[in-house]
């Protein structure tokens, strides 16, 4: 119901129309390919059986989707609850990323209608056999990890509960499958010692592919959070991203050391100073590996959204995209009397069409499903608010697990746009709020009935405390000063809870009194300064 209503009100923005047009072009080109063959839409030929689609859509696509398993394992295996707000976007990107890879393969494969042969005909010697299985299984895992967003929206409790119970299994499987095929994309090229350039060919190829994918995972989460914070007007989780990005210098550092060791051992440094490929080698190493190691080691970068974005883009473009092209395409020997393969416009049209579709799909999910943590308004409170989330506010840090569970059970997460009225002075105080993100301004009417600014609530602080104080009437209005995320605790339920648990009631009352006092100080100081 809600959905159709929202849909009807939804006007298609011009950016989406343009993306839609690009998708249509891609579909038309694909149609030509299905009618007249791959040769009809590409410069691929017998000397270059693999081109843009394998190097970019498959290799880069899979690598840049690594954010999903990195974030999921951080939250569920290593119990870093603080990363939960970026988990869903990362999983969505991963899921869409893999779907995009599969669509690209359906264009690139000579016999796309037989893709299921991978299931029934096995060749355990073939790395591609493993890649195929891992991609199939992992896409399924990602679909299951993504599906709670859908079920929450639909309000289907049964599958939600089931998925909730098997989450850890899914995450373990997903991490295993990702490790396997991120690395096996590198192993694929170990079958071609005469083709891959010696600067890139190595028995460590699987490890190289894995390490760079694991590093580009967080980098992609940064890029994507930055973009979506712009597009969807939500806050950027700078602290979280900064924390996540600490992994990048470690992963890339191991990668760099291994590579230096490997080239030295093979005595191949001569190849690094010959012009041609060696220039690309240095561009890749210096801009894509060394520079990000330095940048992400600096706290001044990790605490600034824009700087992190730049450093992350270096990892994406030079550390991974350039690397995958060097391994799989540019570094290959050019066959005698043939010119270098360059993709033609229709190959790009396919790739661009697939990416456009991916972006549109992301936008639709962001619009209609509870993607960002703050959107969990429609979800049953139990499924969303955990004691960990409560404890992100000092106001709700309690040593007793039972207290936290009690509070979590009656709390829900809500989000507000900038400049949105949350409640109005004089109304009954129905809920207590605790701000998690953003900033809220309080206004009270003075004697002449004029609204004056009487206080500002910052992340971590409670507001709407009248819900705890008789006669439960709001003494101020609250309006957001930025896009906000808050915990909302039903006042009635809270009062019931404190009746059952007087100790909790006392602790809460004490903190509320403290907050009220602070606010009075603040208001007086403000008036006096006038």
């Amino acid at each position: 119901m809600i959905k159709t209503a929202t849909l009807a009100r939804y006007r298609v923005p011009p950016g989406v129309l343009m993306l839609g047009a690009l998708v249509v072009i891609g579909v038309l080109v694909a149609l030509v390919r299905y009618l007249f063959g791959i040769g009809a839409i590409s410069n691929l030929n017998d000397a270059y059986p693999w081109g843009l689609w394998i190097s970019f859509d498959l290799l880069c696509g899979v690598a840049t989707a690594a954010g999903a398993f990195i974030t999921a394992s951080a939250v569920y295996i290593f119990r870093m609850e603080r990363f939960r707000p970026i988990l869903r976007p990362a999983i969505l990107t991963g899921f869409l990323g893999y779907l995009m890879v599969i669509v690209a393969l359906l264009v690139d494969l000579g016999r796309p209608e037989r893709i299921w042969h991978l299931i029934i005909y096995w060749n355990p010697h073939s790395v591609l056999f493993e890649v195929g299985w891992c991609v199939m299984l992992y896409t399924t895992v990602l679909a299951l990890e993504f599906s709670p967003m859908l079920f929450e929206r639909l309000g289907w409790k049964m599958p939600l509960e089931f998925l909730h119970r098997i989450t850890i299994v899914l995450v373990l499987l997903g991490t295993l499958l990702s490790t396997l095929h991120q690395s096996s994309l590198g192993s694929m090229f170990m079958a071609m010692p005469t083709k891959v350039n010696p600067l890139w060919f190595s028995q460590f190829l699987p490890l190289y592919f894995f390490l760079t994918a694991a590093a580009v995972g967080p980098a992609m989460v940064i890029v994507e959070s930055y973009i979506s914070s712009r597009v969807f007007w939500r806050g950027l989780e700078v602290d979280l991203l900064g924390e996540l990005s600490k992994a990048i210098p470690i992963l890339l550092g191991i990668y760099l050391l291994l590579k230096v060791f490997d080239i030295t051992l093979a005595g191949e440094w001569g190849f690094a100073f010959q012009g041609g490929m060696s220039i690309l080698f240095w561009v890749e190493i210096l801009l894509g590996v060394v520079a990000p190691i330095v940048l992400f080691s600096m706290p001044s970068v990790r605490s600034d959204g824009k700087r992190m974005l730049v450093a992350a883009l270096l990892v994406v473009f030079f550390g991974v995209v350039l690397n995958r092209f060097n391994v799989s395409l540019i570094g290959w020997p050019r066959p005698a009397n043939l010119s270098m393969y360059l993709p033609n416009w229709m190959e790009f049209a396919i790739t661009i069409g697939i990416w456009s579709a991916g972006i549109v799909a992301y936008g639709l999910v962001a619009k209609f499903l509870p993607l960002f943590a703050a959107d969990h308004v429609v979800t049953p409170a139990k499924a969303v608010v955990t004691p960990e989330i409560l404890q992100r506010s000092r106001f709700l840090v309690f040593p007793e697990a039972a207290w936290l569970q009690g509070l979590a059970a009656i709390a829900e997460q809500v989000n507000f746009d900038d400049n949105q009225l949350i409640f109005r002075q004089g109304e009954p105080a129905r809920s207590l709020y605790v701000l998690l993100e953003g900033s809220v301004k309080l206004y009270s009417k003075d004697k002449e009935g004029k609204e004056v600014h009487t206080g500002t609530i910052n992340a971590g602080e409670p507001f709407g405390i009248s819900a705890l104080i008789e006669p439960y009437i709001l003494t101020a209005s609250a309006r957001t000063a930025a896009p906000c995320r808050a915990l909302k605790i039903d006042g009635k339920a809270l009062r019931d809870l404190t009746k059952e648990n007087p100790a909790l009631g006392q602790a809460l009352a004490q903190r509320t009194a403290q907050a009220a006092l602070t606010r009075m100080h603040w208001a007086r100081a403000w008036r006096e300064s006038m």
Partner: protein
Amino acid sequence: MAKYGMLIDETRCTGCRGCQVACKQWNDLPGEETHNTGSYTNPPHLSAQTWNLIEYKEIDRGGQVGFFFLKRACMHCEHPACVSVCPVGALRKTPEGPVVYDDHKCIGCRYCMAACPFGIPKFDWQKGLLEGALIRKCTFCADRLSNGLIPACAKTCPSKAITFGERDQLIVEAENRIRKNPDKYVNHVYGKEEAGGTSILYLSAVPFEQLGLPKLGPAPVTTLSEQVMEYTLPFAGVWLATLAGLAAVFKFRERGAKQPEIGPAADDPHNKEASK
């Protein structure tokens, strides 16, 4: 079972292209429309329509430029890279020698093309879904062999440059020819050991790289990738156990986690402002 091979003595080849035509005839392959590329090699490359090609090389031997020929077709490797990498097992090495392809299994990934060190498998680039694109390459006339016939190219060759027989005996024969005419041949039987050995063996008067055959070591090119595949399952088991163990450890640690101190901490903005 006899393991067959073919010995191609390039010093005997006259470049008549008889084998090229015989191959097209037996396999029902259409001619290709070509244009002058400045070389006698015609068509210029192997393709899905041309599985056997005589390449013409003008090679300078101490001031004298001469024509040399290379009969290029599938080598029917002993450890074929194409067979090793095909994800669906569409390619298969038969015990008799031919490396054959199953039209009905192939998914068209073209990994075989990328992996073959000799650049042999070719693809139907101009076929859509209805025609059904396939990988095409020399079959060693497996269909003829199983009916007691020798390959069409070997049957046709008027100058006896192509000898069909059992691989072991062909190697003996090739080494004999070198021994009898050491000045005529490069002292090497190409294919005896290259990339793990091939069913097709070459003798030549000029170095094989000049003819256009790649320099390859005795190990099959897919040695490393096959090794990785062997380690994959054990690795997966160990890794999954490790991850599960880590998950358990962290879950346990969280349960027994130190409880945060009571009340708002010193850096709580409320506290600071209230005590002012």
